[in-house]
């Protein structure tokens, strides 16, 4: 999921919540609650189906639709067998760690690199600053496909020239993910840094601090909310990515979880419960992050909007 922070024309003002001020708000809103309840349940319905299917036996899955369990919840052959099968089919003992090895540097590196660039764009003066920034803004929209073939060729050439293969190794994915995260990261972080009090930076300058010291000791610690928001996005984006892994990690010893799930998708003849359980194994990390860090997640979405 690409999330471009979106500028809001009128920055949110302090407004009284419409439903805790005034007289007309104390209505219980039963109808709205019911409508929203229906929408929300419908929204989660596909995922509920996935969860139920993963807990059924192959015979049950093949015989009846998963929604029939609601009619007869105790007549089912409930089992967690599928999770074990899917774990093996995904080779999760390996692919899980591969996913982590791809995702962690592909999150940390772009955040740090972009923070440096954002600092330069915010606090340093240099020629062509506006133009560079406009280029960055434009690059946010550029689809990754435009660079795929030449990057592959470049990696092959590098591998032939130095004898160090890159394709199939983690760094191939790090580089590609870091590059394509750069524009958005710089944009979010610059937006945030430009709200930091300039006087503080000035004061540090007067006290003789170098820009490197200011960057590490002031700008980075003060930008933690923005850094965290972006890092969460990038983490989810890379963890959930299939395309880059498919092209640059390829099938082999360094395969990531999403690739495992993709091949599992092709094996539904051996039972849908395995596919469902595999999907859940792949979903665990994003869902955990999502629930634990929801506050940052939502703040990251509105990063461009809420100053």
């Amino acid at each position, binding site marked *: 999921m*690409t*999330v471009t922070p979106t*500028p*809001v*024309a*009128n920055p*949110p003002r302090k*407004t009284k919540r*419409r*439903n805790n001020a005034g007289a007309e708000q104390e209505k219980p809103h039963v109808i709205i*609650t019911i409508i*929203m309840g229906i*929408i929300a349940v419908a*929204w989660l319905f*596909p*995922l509920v*189906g*996935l969860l139920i299917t993963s807990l059924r036996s192959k015979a049950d899955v093949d015989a009846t*639709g*998963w*929604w029939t369990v609601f009619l007869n919840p105790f007549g089912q052959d409930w089992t967690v067998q599928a999770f074990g099968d899917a774990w093996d089919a995904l080779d999760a003992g390996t692919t899980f*760690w591969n996913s982590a090895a791809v995702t962690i*540097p592909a999150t940390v*590196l772009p955040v*740090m690199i*972009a923070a*440096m*660039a954002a600092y*330069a764009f915010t606090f*340093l003066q240099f020629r062509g600053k506006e133009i*560079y920034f406009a280029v960055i803004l*434009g690059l946010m*929209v*550029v*689809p990754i*496909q*435009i*660079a795929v*073939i030449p990057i592959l060729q470049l990696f092959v050439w590098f591998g032939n020239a130095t004898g160090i293969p890159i394709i199939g190794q*983690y760094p191939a994915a*790090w*580089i590609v993910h870091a*590059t394509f995260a*750069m524009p958005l990261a710089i944009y979010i972080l610059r937006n945030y840094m430009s709200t930091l009090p300039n006087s503080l930076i000035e004061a540090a300058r007067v006290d003789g601090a170098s820009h*490197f010291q200011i960057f590490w000791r002031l700008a980075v610690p003060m930008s933690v909310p923005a850094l965290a928001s972006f890092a969460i996005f990038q983490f989810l984006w890379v963890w*959930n*990515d*299939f395309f880059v892994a498919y092209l640059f990690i390829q099938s082999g010893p360094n395969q990531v979880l*999403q690739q495992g799930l*993709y091949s599992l*998708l092709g094996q*539904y003849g051996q039972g849908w419960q395995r596919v*469902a359980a*595999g999907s859940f194994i*792949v*979903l665990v990390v*994003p869902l955990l992050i999502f629930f634990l860090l929801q506050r940052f997640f939502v703040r990251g*979405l*509105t990063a461009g*909007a809420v100053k």
Partner: protein
Amino acid sequence: MAIFSAVISVVLGLGLSFLIFWLFNWIVEKQQDRTKARLLPYVFLFPVIVLVAVFLLYPALRTFVESFMEQSKRRGEGATFVGLDNYISLFTDPNFLGVLLNNLLWVIVVPASAVLIGLLIAILTDRLGKRREQSFKAMIFIPMAISGIAAAATWRFIYFYAPPGNPQIYLLNAVWTRLTGNDPVPWLTIDAARVNSFLLMFIVIWLQVGFAMVLLSAAVKGVPEETIEAARLDGANERRTFLLIIVPQIRGTVLAVFVTVTIFVMKSFDIIYGMTGGQYNTSVLVVDFYSQLFSFQNPGKAAAVVIILMIAVVPLIVYQIRSYKSQEELR
């Protein structure tokens, strides 16, 4: 074993990057003050410049050139310049025109639906108490955390096909056979009226509404209370208040969400690839790029496809830069 190599790679990769950074820092600190001031911005920008130049701008240029070339079928022979041939053969190919039509439908339908549904939910939840609002929003939002491949897996349980006579274990066909009494339909292969593409679009809408909802909800809350009060005092009903007071004030956000979802749609590959692999006329540009490159072994044509995609996103680039400029002026 996997965990060890993973940990070692992570530590090495990060360590090396920080070492390079530290080295630059050290070099610059050694310089004279005046050169230091001039060099400093570029030290901060250096990693970005390298990454973007080597892995984005240069490849983009190469792709552009490659779109005018044709790779020889024989191994070891280079490519020859063929002018606009790749483009001409694409635009005279009915399959590719179908791909363009699909892409157009995707770009119109998905962002508009995501914005409308997101706005509806934002407005409905805005009238509820805080607790209920939060929990409903969280439920709508969950699909955003799901990968394209996992979403494809999830929706296979709804869209797939079991031949007549077999138990109907896929939801859509179960409902269809029950309601109409007809035979089940292989939905994902039905390209009449692009039924299969619309079904796939629904998955992306399902994923993206949460995003639209969060931003639109923030915008709706940002509408100043006084303007709404004033409209109510003047006797405007709910609908008129919404259309004439709220909508004009959140227009900027609506547009921004629309553009962001459009960008996402233009780039999303996983779901279509995971559901149909682009078969049955469901392909869009990013999927067609992949088929041209790997299935048809035709890098020149693949490059032409991605250049066409690039031309299609130019308006979005212009929009991004312009909206940023107007935002800067507000500061």
